[in-house]
């Protein structure tokens, strides 16, 4: 994975603040920061070309892809990973990126995506439906061992069966963090229309008013006679 790392050319950011960041965005440059990588290395403010960054991110398994940052005008290169990213919720335009420097000999804690394959027996033959409860897992491994995704085959699951984290086998190099009892996928029965609503929220007949919590009123009533007495 590290050998084929893509290279992204970045520039040092000279200005900081909201207005400067917006001016960079207008020029198709994304404000970014790089940090981590052991003691003695200082964080640095950067700007990244938007299109080049979006291309890397939109590739499959982008969350944990490691690539190189090259500082423009120098030969300095660093293996990095995206630690955090701000994206506009409607337009999906990148607002800001956090890069973290990667040390190839140090283990990382990352979130790996779960890739579900197969159709469970319980869905095929027994009329159930597959409920995927966990979509990603925290794992610990060396940068070279980062899996693109965790492949999980659910084809053996019958009705009311669950697949748990403890059932996964990822090899010796990858350690799963967290509880082994956590459910990844479950085959259940789809409830009828009415029961599905009951499970989601309290339901009241139309036109009725809910109960008003009277705590505030009691306090007011208790205070009111005192005022009258003063008069």
């Amino acid at each position, binding site marked *: 994975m590290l050998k084929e790392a893509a290279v992204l050319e970045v520039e040092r950011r000279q200005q900081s603040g909201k207005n400067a960041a917006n001016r960079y965005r207008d020029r198709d440059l994304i404000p970014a920061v790089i940090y981590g990588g052991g003691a003695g290395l200082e964080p640095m403010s950067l700007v990244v070309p938007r299109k080049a960054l979006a291309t890397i991110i939109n590739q499959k398994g982008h969350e944990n892809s490691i690539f190189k940052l090259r500082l423009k005008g120098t030969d300095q290169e660093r293996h990095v990973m995206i630690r955090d990213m701000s994206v506009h919720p409607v337009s999906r335009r990148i607002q800001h990126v956090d890069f973290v420097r990667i040390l190839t000999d140090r283990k990382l804690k990352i979130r790996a995506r779960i890739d579900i394959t197969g159709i469970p027996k319980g869905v095929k033959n027994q009329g159930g*439906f597959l409920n995927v409860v966990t979509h990603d897992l925290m794992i610990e491994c060396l940068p070279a061992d980062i899996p693109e995704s965790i492949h999980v085959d659910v084809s053996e699951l019958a009705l009311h069966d669950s697949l748990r984290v403890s059932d996964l086998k990822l090899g010796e190099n990858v350690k799963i963090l967290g509880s082994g009892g956590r459910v990844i996928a479950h085959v259940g029965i789809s409830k*009828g229309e009415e029961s599905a609503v009951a499970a989601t929220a309290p*339901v009241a007949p139309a036109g009725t008013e809910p109960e*008003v*919590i009277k705590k*505030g009123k009691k306090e007011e009533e208790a205070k009111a006679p005192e005022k009258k007495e003063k008069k």
Partner: protein
Amino acid sequence: MLMPSKVKYRKQQKGRRRGTALRGSSLAFGDFALQAMECGWLTARQLEAGRVAIQRHVKRGGKLWIRVFPDKPITKKPAETRMGKGKGAPEGWVAVIKPARLIFEIEGVDEKTAREAFGLAQDKIGIKTRFVTREVLESVR
């Protein structure tokens, strides 16, 4: 229809809907969702109509999540009433929707069925919405 079981105050002020939804804008339960593209009030009646339309289309397959809750009371004055004399009586409940908010999520159905079901729900909801998948919500520009 959905409404709170207990409230602290019977009536609320109108409020403003500035900005975009930050919470409730990413898929938490299902694989497909209906995402609001503009702000507005979604009444309990509209939500219920949308839910019924989706569940009738997918029949017994799949699981549906309603990601919004109508917890804001709306009042109305009676017809042919002179202005003044206080705020009107509570008439219904609405959910305040901002752009990017997910309204429904579904799991356990294929994309085509989900798209058709949400298409029916879109007609029942008075605000502009779009169909989104996990890939759409994870992609960037």
